[in-house]
């Protein structure tokens, strides 16, 4: 074929259909994965913070919390903190992925997407699932470090953790995209994210058990959605450990509502419902923007 050919291939763009929208979702998602893979720096910098928490804080504070009977099994603060660190790493990556919408807007690529004959929902859903997958991939790297926290490499546990992380990541990306829909600069987006993420992290039970807290703190943690993403991870980890009941009770008290222990199924339900709700709001925001 030469550069200029008289028989030009003509393309007829089809009318909008569900199949077409699915194809759009897929390519938006794929782009997120390609970008994540290309941007290795981001992968490495995303690991820095969780590793600091796990190795430095975990080891450092373990001396304060050594329990009788726990040391023989190797379970200590690191083990406790491990699910929290998984959740944190997922949270940071999910927010960063959502922030890429602001980035796309600043660099014009969003316009390429918004002028296409495809529904806004397809773009937002693609972004959201892409962000959730990327965040789960980052979380998987932390799961690979389980041995450092005396967490066993049990296939069932690993699959459970990955699945729960994905659901949490999905809700968090939805939250991030909802925020990003209105933002015009990366600076303001990250400013806002810092403001939202720090309290969410500290009030989630990622770093300390949620029992025996002062009432005000206890109430705040129960209203924090991240709490319900962290607890199932910890439940899964402790279900695969053999530790004395006293240790389990201290390290893994679960989440209680007025004394009633919230089952894992309900916690996951809350996370999923929240994710779907936030995604819906994000879609409405993008539609209204037209």
């Amino acid at each position: 074929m030469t550069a200029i050919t008289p028989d030009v291939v003509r393309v007829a763009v089809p009318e909008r259909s569900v199949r077409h929208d699915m194809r759009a979702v897929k390519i938006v998602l794929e782009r997120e994965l390609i970008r994540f893979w290309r941007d290795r720096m981001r992968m490495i910098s995303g690991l820095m913070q969780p590793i600091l928490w796990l190795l430095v804080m975990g080891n450092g504070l373990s001396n304060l919390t050594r329990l009788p009977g726990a040391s023989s099994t190797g379970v200590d603060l690191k083990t406790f903190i491990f699910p929290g660190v998984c959740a944190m790493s997922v949270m940071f990556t999910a927010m960063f992925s959502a922030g890429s919408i602001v980035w796309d807007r600043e660099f014009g690529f969003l316009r390429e997407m918004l002028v296409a004959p495809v529904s806004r929902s397809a773009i937002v859903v693609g972004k959201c699932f892409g962000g959730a997958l990327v965040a789960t991939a980052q979380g998987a790297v932390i799961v690979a470090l389980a041995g450092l926290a005396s967490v066993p490499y049990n296939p069932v546990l690993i699959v459970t953790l990955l699945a729960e992380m994905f659901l949490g990541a999905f809700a968090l990306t939805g939250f991030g995209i909802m925020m990003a829909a209105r933002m015009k600069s990366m600076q303001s987006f990250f400013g806002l994210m810092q403001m939202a993420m720090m309290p969410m992290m500290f009030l989630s039970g990622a770093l300390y058990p949620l029992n025996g807290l002062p009432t005000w703190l206890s109430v705040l943690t129960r209203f924090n959605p991240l709490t319900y993403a962290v607890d199932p991870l910890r439940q899964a980890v402790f279900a695969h450990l053999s530790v004395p009941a006293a240790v389990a009770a201290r390290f893994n008290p679960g989440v209680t509502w007025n004394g009633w222990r919230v089952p894992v199924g309900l916690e996951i339900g809350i996370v999923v419902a929240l994710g779907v709700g936030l995604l819906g709001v994000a879609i409405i925001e993008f539609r209204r923007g037209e």
Partner: protein
Amino acid sequence: MEAGGAPPGSAVEVDGLVKRFGELEAVKGIGFTVRPGEIFGFLGPNGAGKSTTISMLCTLLKPTAGAARVAGYDVVTQRDDVRRNIGLVFQDPTLDGYLTGEQNLRFHADLYGVPRSLFPERLRQVLEMVNLWDRRGDRVETYSGGMKRRLEIARGLLHSPRVLFLDEPTVGLDPQTRSSIWEYIRQLRDTEEITIFMTTHYMDEAEYCDRIAIIDSGKIVALDTPEALKASVGKDRVQINTDDDEATIAALKERFDLEAAVHEGAVTFAVPSGGEFVPRLFAELGIPIKSVSVSRPSLDDVFMSYTGNTIRDAEGSAGDFMRMMIRAGGRR
């Protein structure tokens, strides 16, 4: 309306189009028609309303009043149909630098639903046209400014649009790249059965258009072929060199009643038939003339005669303000 329907009578039809941003009326009720297959130039200084108009035609901005049809479809009520039939190359790049050239185009193909069976061949065709086939596997962030613009043109063509909108396609490029972009644009018309609607503020480039509309402060002040527009000015530009410019200007005023000024180092003025005027000039000026040149009116002169301004003078703070407004509006 169906996708494969008969080609419309006109590629673009605009009637009484108005766009207001709060107090500011950026486009003040314009109307024009673009015929299928032509290269239509939208000419004006920055801030004249070019980008606002193009954004409305591309369904990115809602008109405040008036109507527009692109490829036969209404830009407000049949937005998706318009989108399926247009290609866009924006003023600012809209490529993903992390992706390769090919990946950027594949993204576009999937978003537009280009049939998978046609994609490989079409990809090759558009990339070969802009001479980027060999670079398709490289990340776009490694491309030069000109390569990026070429890739955007290829992408805008990928889904065989009936109307291709080019918003300042050559702005910020070096002269060599500019002329190569123009080569692609002209080649396109021969191979693709496409209508090209472009904005520019480079006067020399407007010459390549079949017809041009001159827009100034949100209104169309002239619309015709470049030749007809130049003829309508009716005056040639005469430039003379003498030893005493001041005296020459005074003499021109006194003896011929002509307003002259020094431009580009020569005394410059306009007369209806330059060639016939020169013998009189030598006979009656009374000041020795060292050299003389007569030129047909350029589009610069056309612009000047319709707006009372050169295109560069007309660009100013108003332009910057408009760009800001458009960016704020272009968010959606």
